[in-house]
C-alpha cells in the first residue's frame, strides 16, 4: 500500500511525464506539441517540489513550536525553471506564428509535404 499511496506524488509525476512525452511524439499539430512539451516540463516541476516537502513540515521560519521544516530550495529552483518554461513556450508559439505565415498550416505532415514538393 505504501508504495502506491506513499509515493502518490511520484506516480502522478511519471503519468504526466509520459503523457506529455507521448503528445510531443504522436501529435502532428505543432500547437499540440507545445502543449505536450508544457505537460512534460510541469511534471518535472512537481518532482522537484515533492522532493522538498517534508511530511508535517512548515515553511522554514524559525518560530517556537515548530521543529520540522520543508526545504525551500527546490521550490525556488522551480521558480527559475517555470520562467524558462514560459520563455520556451513563447519562443515556440512565436515560431509557430511565423511557420503559419510561411506555410499556411501548422500541421507537421502538411509542412513536410510542402517542403518535399519543392
Amino acid at each position, binding site marked *: 500500500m505504501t508504495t502506491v499511496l506513499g509515493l502518490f506524488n511520484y506516480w502522478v509525476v511519471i503519468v504526466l511525464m509520459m503523457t506529455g*512525452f507521448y503528445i*510531443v511524439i504522436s501529435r502532428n499539430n*505543432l500547437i499540440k*506539441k507545445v502543449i505536450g*512539451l508544457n505537460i*512534460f*516540463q510541469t511534471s*518535472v516541476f512537481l*518532482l*522537484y517540489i515533492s*522532493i522538498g516537502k517534508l511530511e508535517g513540515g512548515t515553511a522554514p521560519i524559525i518560530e517556537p513550536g515548530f521543529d520540522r521544516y520543508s526545504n525551500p530550495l*527546490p521550490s525556488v*529552483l522551480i521558480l*527559475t*525553471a517555470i520562467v*524558462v518554461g514560459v*520563455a*520556451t513556450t513563447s*519562443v*515556440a508559439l512565436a*515560431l*509557430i506564428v*511565423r*511557420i503559419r505565415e*510561411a*506555410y499556411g498550416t501548422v500541421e507537421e505532415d502538411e*509542412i513536410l509535404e510542402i*517542403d518535399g514538393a519543392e
Partner: protein
Amino acid sequence: MIREQLPALQIVLPLVAAPLCVILRRRIPVLGLAIAVAWTTFAIAVALLRQVLADGPIAYALGGWAPPWGIEYRIDPLAAFVLMFVSLIGAVTLTYAPRSLAREIPSDRLHLFIAAFLLCLTGLLGIVISGDLFNVFVFLEISALSSYVLIAMGRDRRALTAAFQYLVLGTIGATFILIGIGLLYAMTGTLNMADMAARLPEVMSTRTVVAALGFFSIGLFIKMALFPLHIWLPNAYSYAPSMVTAFLAGTATKVAVYVMLRFTFTVTNIKMSFGASDLGTVLIGLSLAGIFVASTVAIFQRDVKRLLAYSSVAQIGYMVLGISFASVTGLTATIVHLFNHALIKGGLFLAMGCFAFVAGGTRLERLHGIGKTMPWTTFAWVLGGLSLIGVPATAGFVSKMYLIRAALEAGVWPVAAMILLSSLLALVYVWRVVEVAYFMPAPEGAERREAPLSMLIPTWLLIGASIVFGIWTSASAGIAARAAEALLGIAP
C-alpha cells in the same frame, strides 16, 4: 582589483551588452559595441587562461556568498581552455557578420539578432565557467533559447521548421538534464559540483543515482547531437544564417561535450560512472556508428552546408570516443579536438558563407569552377578540408594521432583501424567539393569575384590557426594534456 573580478566580467559583459544593443537600435553602434565586447570577452578569457596555467584553478564566489551555499565559478585548465576558444569563435564570427548579415537579415531586425547572439555567447560561457549544477541548467537554457531564435532568422522558410524541431528536442534534452540534477540533489542535498563529488560516493549504488546519471547523460547526448540523437542538427545548421552556423558548429555542441567531461570526471567518479553500466563500451559503439553513418550520409549530400553538418555529427563521434577510453591520452584527444574542430568547422562554415554570399547558394551545382572565380575562399576551404581529414601538419592530424594512440594504449587496435578507415570517408566528401570547385568548368561569363575582405580575413584567421596549431602542437595539445591530467586527478 579588476583582475580578481575577471571571472564575473567574463559573463556579465556580454550579458549587459545584449539589452544595450536593443536600446541602441542603429546598425553602426550596435555592431561596434557587439564586436568590441566580443573581443574584450576573448581578452578576458586569455587572461584567465594565463592566470590558471600559472597559479592553478580559480574559485570565485559570486556576490561574495561562500560555496556551497552561493554559486561558485570555478575555472580549471579545461574550463579556461574552453572559455578561450568559445569566446574566440564568438569574436571572429561577429567580426565576419556585418557584410554577411546585411544580405541575410532584414536591417530593422539586426539589433535584436545581435542581442540574441550575445545572449547565446553568455549562455555558452556561463555553462563552462559555473561550478553549480543548477546554474549550468539555467545557462544551458539561455544559450538554447537564443540559438532557436538565431536559427529561425535564416532566409529559407525551412529555417523555421528546423528551429522548431530543435526547440522541441532541445527542451526535451534540457528537461532530462533537469530531472537528473533534481534526483542528484535529492540524494546529496547539494548543487555545488565539488561538494556533490564528495558526497556522491556514499549513495552511488542507489537506484535513484543510477536513474539520475541516465537522465543527465541522455539529455546531454541530445544537446551534443551524439548519433542517433542528432536529427535536429543537419536541418538547423543547413538553414541558419551563415555566421550562426559557423558559431554554433564551433561552440554549442563542444560545450555540451565539455559538460559531459565535467560531469563524468569531476562530479561523478569515473570508475563508478563507467563501471556501473558499461557506459564506456556503449559509448565506443555509439561514437563509431555515428562516425561511419554520418560520414557516409555526408558523402551523398548535394548541399555543401548540409554535408558539413553531417560531418559535424561524425566529429562529435571522435570526441566521445576519446572520452570513452577514460585515459589521459583519450581525454587529451577529446579536449584538443574540441579546440581543433572548433577552428576547422568554424573556418569551413565561414568559407561556406563566403560562397553563399557571392554565388548565391551552397548547392554543389552553384560551386562549379568556383576555384577559379573565388581562389582565396576555395583555397581556405581546401585547407580546412585537409585538416578535417587529418592530413599531417594540420590541426586535425594532431587530434587523430592522440585518438589512435589512446586506442592502442587501451589495446583495442580494431578501433584504431576504424579511426583510420573513417578518415577515408572524410577524404571522399571533401574531395567531392574539391572536384566540383577545381575540375568543373565555371558557368559562361563568370568573373573573378572574391568575397569582401571583412569576411575573408576572419575565415583565414580560423583556417590559418588550424594550420598553426597543426605544427605548433605544444600550445594546444600541451594545455589539453594538462587539463586531462587535472580531470583525472593526476598531479602534473
